[in-house]
């Protein structure tokens, strides 16, 4: 009986805890913090001659909301993924490795402006770095 109870506890623990670690989401300031970071990054991109051209015909408000949502998902926040896949939305853009790095630099600069501690920045970058293959050279 005790064993059944224990297994039941383990099972319910597993099902109610889909391995979500919200600490990164919280460290970045949750929804408000992510929004400030994304808006800062978009402002940096607007001043970045290397990649601003890629955003010429983009609805920036919609992009901001999508990016905040995506960062929320990636950092363990209470958001659901929606829309097309990363591969799909970058299809035909032929983004280069250099473009990707330029965006990373604009993101880092935005996080520095927001005073995000370096270890927290690195945790976010470590989540995003594996996505490069879904974004570039498509």
């Amino acid at each position, binding site marked *: 009986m005790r064993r059944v109870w224990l297994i039941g506890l383990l099972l319910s623990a597993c099902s109610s805890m889909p391995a979500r670690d919200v600490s990164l989401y919280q460290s970045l300031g949750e929804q408000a913090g992510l929004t400030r970071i994304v808006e800062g990054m978009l402002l940096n991109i607007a001043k970045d001659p290397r990649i601003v051209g890629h955003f010429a015909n983009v609805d920036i408000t919609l992009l901001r909301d999508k990016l905040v949502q995506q960062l929320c998902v990636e950092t363990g926040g209470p958001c659901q993924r929606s829309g097309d896949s990363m591969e799909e939305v970058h299809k035909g853009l032929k983004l280069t490795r250099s473009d990707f*790095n330029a965006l990373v630099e604009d993101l880092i600069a935005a996080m520095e402006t927001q005073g995000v501690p370096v270890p927290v920045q*690195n*945790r976010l*970058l470590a989540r995003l*770095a594996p996505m490069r*293959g879904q974004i570039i050279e498509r």
Partner: protein
Amino acid sequence: MKHTLAVLFCSALPLLAAADGRLLATGGASSLEGAAGGGITPWAVLAGYGEAGECGATAFATRVDSQDYRLDVTGAALAWDNRVELSFARQRLDISSLHLPDSSLNQDIFGLKVRLFGDLLYDQLPQVSLGVQHKQQQNFLIPELVGARRDQDTEAYVQASRLLLGGAFGYNLLLNGGVRYSRANQLGLLGFGGDANDQHEVLAEASLAVLFNPRWVLGVEYRQKPDNLGFAQENDWSDVFVGYFPNKHLALVLAWAQLGDIAGQSNQNGPYLSVQGSF
């Protein structure tokens, strides 16, 4: 000649001006032998900040002040496509404290480095590069007198480098390791091969560095050395360094180098300062 061709090649490309496709500090500093890397060891990274389809170039000057000697190095490197690097370094070791016929030992080093596969930061595999260095000792009188066998030689190395995001208690960690196949005495300043050993040896090189932010880095390096000359012992080298990368055009490295015995003088330890410009 190779340099001239590559310069022409790169100049012909309109992308040259935008050669900053890689992240800050990922071009490393300039090593004593001209290749991109740390100070006493090369890394697998290529000079400058050029990514695929871009050129990168660096020029540098380095001084090491040890107890009895002073080493001055100037040089330049050119990289293309984040794939191939050509480098040149001119070394002058001031030995006037020894009161010998020559007041210095001089050497020129021509280097070629090719990224074989992988990436410093992205992809599954670490960045792995193969390098070849052709070294020409310029004033062979003293090296020959102390037993060196030849005044020029070619050596090869393989290096693997990886930047682990958050790898050091949340801070980015650069790991670097490789082997060199060499018989150079004190980098080649005392010639190549000697009375005690005249064969190339496999020698280990490694370094580890922590990036406190994208601009500041603190690290250590180690380099195994041959010991080919009977007249004096040669020791492995190591150093502790601080690197500062304020932007993609400047890199400063300040280190404390431990060079051990050199030509009979022991405890050749001292400050190392290197300035690199990136274009």
